[in-house]
């Protein structure tokens, strides 16, 4: 099977640690459920991602070098 997370076009997905998550939620003044969603079955997710986790996605950007996005794992 092809592991899509290794593909050069798939940006890096990591599970966000609880403390870091708190900071993010604090920064944007939101609940985790207000974040954009990602399906648990998404092939790009790291193996240890579970329902209710928040994933940090760092992708290369033409204009800002790197852009960071957070997503909430849903079923």
């Amino acid at each position, binding site marked *: 099977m092809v592991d899509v997370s290794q593909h050069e076009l798939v940006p890096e997905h990591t599970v966000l640690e609880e403390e870091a998550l708190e900071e993010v939620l604090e920064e*944007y003044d*939101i609940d985790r459920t*207000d*974040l*954009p969603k990602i399906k648990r079955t998404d092939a790009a997710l790291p193996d240890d991602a579970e329902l209710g986790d928040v994933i940090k996605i760092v992708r290369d*950007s033409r204009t*800002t070098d790197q*852009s960071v996005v*957070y997503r909430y794992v*849903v079923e």
Partner: protein
Amino acid sequence: MQDTTPKDIGSLSFGLMEPEEYREMSATKIITADTYDDDGFPIDMGLMDPRLGVIDPGLECKTCGKHSGSCNGHFGHIELAAPVIHVGFTKLIRRLLRGTCRECSKLLLTEDERDEFRDQLTESRKLSRDLNDVTKAAIRQARKKDRCPFCGEIQYDIDHEKPTTYYEVQQVLTSEYSQRIAGAMQGDEEEGVERTTPDELAEQTEIELTRVNEILSGSFRPRESQRKAIEKALDIDLTEEDTNKLMPSDIRDWFENIPDEDIEVLGINPERSRPEWMILTVLPVPPVTARPSITLDNGQRSEDDLTHKLVDIIRINQRFMENREAGAPQLIIEDLWELLQYHVTTFMDNEISGTPPARHRSGRPLKTLSQRLKGKEGRFRGSLSGKRVNFSARTVISPDPTLSMNEVGVPDRVAKEMTQTMNVTERNVADARRFVSNGPEGHPGANYVRRPDGRRLKVTEKNCEQLAEKIEAGWEVNRHLIDGDIVIFNRQPSLHRMSIMAHEVVVMPYKTFRLNTVVCPPYNADFDGDEMNMHALQNEEARAEARVLMRVQEQMLSPRFGENIIGAIQDHISGMYLLTHDNPRFNETQALDLLRATRIDELPDPSGVDDEGEPFWTGYDVFSELLPDDLNLEFTGTVGDEVVVEDGQLLKGTIAEDEVGEFGGEIVDTITKVYGNTRARIFVNEVSTLAMRAIMHFGFSIGIDDETIPGEAQARIDETIADANDRVEELIEAYENNELESLPGRTIDETLEMKIMQSLSRARDNAGNIADEHFQDDNPAVVMANSGARGSMLNLTQMAGAVGQQAVRGERINRGYEDRTLSHYEPNDLSAEAHGFVENSYTSGLTPREFFFHAMGGREGLVDTAVRTSKSGYLQRRLINALHELETQYDGTVRDSSDTIIQFEFGEDGTSPVKVSSDDDNDIDVDQIASRVLDSEFDSETERDEFLGTRPEPTNLSEHADDRLTDGTEVSSDD
């Protein structure tokens, strides 16, 4: 003073209304179907009861004491003789009937399942998903249960006959049971089923033999257990479906017993809405203000559709009660009940499928409650999102090159109608008096004044002089539009934000709106009869926002591609091309004339002296006068040559489309980004006026002779086309002899078609090239094509050379008759001529057959555009519906109205496309801008250091103020 203060909405709550609440808010019970008595007075407790509000001016409302206009009206109520179903909730009623127990009304889910669904519901709420998915799943689960998990009662299927009838479907013993049993006992020899004797049957089913005989004779109906035993023994079905109609009253009783905690699982808040309230026992009667009656010219009163419907309801309601009290048979009662249900149903929705719509006497279907809300002309889309507004005007547009692009010419008759509110102070009282004394007919005049006590007076020809004397500080004057007022201007379809821009008013005679031609691209306007809308702004905040954000010059750069959308077009470009292409020379008079409509009133030093000793200026010199003094640019231009601007002097190149045109003209783009919108506006305005002067100086016209070529060239073209025809014949011959080799991935037929198309398009290109050779560079059509002003070399080829192959769906024309395109050709003729190749040019004229093929190809183009516009319009509507609530917040995130994050940073980089350079080759030189600004601001180094970094950009207030600013003179403020 009127109480018109806007109020904040604290919260909205949606739910069902309790019958008791209907009664409480009711001003009166309605019992008679009549509206007015013989003297024309409303009948008490009738549908026009004065307690329901007032519609006639001058009368006082009996409930609240207010007059018409300020009284919103009051609801009444009708006590329904029997409960009826509310059509709006039929689906929910069906769901509840299917999901709850027929005996104890509990939800048919075990406690565990119930809790599970409740948790899912809260989760869904948090993620703002569709709650219906969960509640539907819950009902589906509940329907699977045959028996109630609490009381053990058997559950039956619920059938829903649209719109408002529900049946319970039960399996009961068929009336033909004895025959069926006897038949089955006979057995079937062919199928190998043996005969069964009554003895055997009695044994197998453990029913006494006498009972079996009684059952067989039909004198005893087997009990359920016996029935099942017999069915099992004989392998037959003894049941039939029996439907049991559920009356609204039954459903109401059923729903009353549903426990609150079960309702919650279905997503209903039991504190606000109980399911039994979906069955109406009381009908609210809308206030008369919601269904006003009108008096016709002949004095007859005509009632609103809702009133007609209410009359029907009350009549049936009364008949129902009378019949019931008189002890009428059940059948009649049920008929009346159904009739009542029909009237209440159509009162709320008259477009229910399966029910004939209630009609007016004339046969027109009645417009009842739901018809008032639904659809394009309904309350939401028609009256709330799409209101008609005051202070707006619409008329035909026409061009006026003397206006600035920031301005709009407004007809005087429009200016006299649309007013601006002027708050009179001591400083403007003289102006205000002048306006009022001019009256409503003179311009600039005034239409209304408002005294400090709030009283509004109309200014008339008669009273204007006296009124003018009374005007003092504290009054308000609604004066006519005058030059310099800001208005909003719009052309539909409003596809992007540049479709609505703010302009400054210039009042003009005649009847059309006038605009500068450079604003045609953003509006996508032309002058073949286009109309546009204008809106006069009514408060200072709106005017200020329009001026700062919406003025045309602020919209020079399109957010779609980050380059200028406003620039020189058509003749402007031809003019600039003529002015700069061969760098012609002008004497002093000519040069001054070219620059007449610009700010330039002094010529630079001449470029040189001609043979007669007269000084001359070149086209470059003239154009360079419009450029900022320190502009430096170098790029490849429209014509393919290098364009070089150094220190504001054009040194090399031709100015045409890619230099100053719409949609990314390099010089306009750079000036906008480096020198600001005001400078760019001045530049574009001046380029367009200079170009008009230039094109008038040289003269520019086009005629049929400009597309005609000498006979010798025509002969060469004919030759090329004959050659091509020969090649095609060769190809066809090869094909018919099976000598043609197919291209990879194509069939032989496709290969032939492709090759024919290729040789024919080559023939057209060759014909075009021959024609081109005979055109001079100063041919107006060539000038337009080369400069990018209008048309292309292809158009020229078609006019002078050959029109070429006509195509439908990308292929040669193949349709028409069987095996041929027209009856003029042999069947299966593959020649160029028979499939739509047009040898002639537009100037030489098309043959009838060519003309027909040309029309076929042209038709496709028209159909395409028609289809595309409707498709893209619908796509646009869907995109807008999906995206309209997204908003960039102050923290840079993009969120929707429920604060869910859509993007963490606008566009992932937080950058506006109009604030960045359009490509790598054209960086915005920030340092240059900074030093330029600083150098011009300060005389000494110290002064500059003192100030660095604190100066805000000035707001450009008005067309004329800007001019004064750029001239270097500061505008002194009034105070």
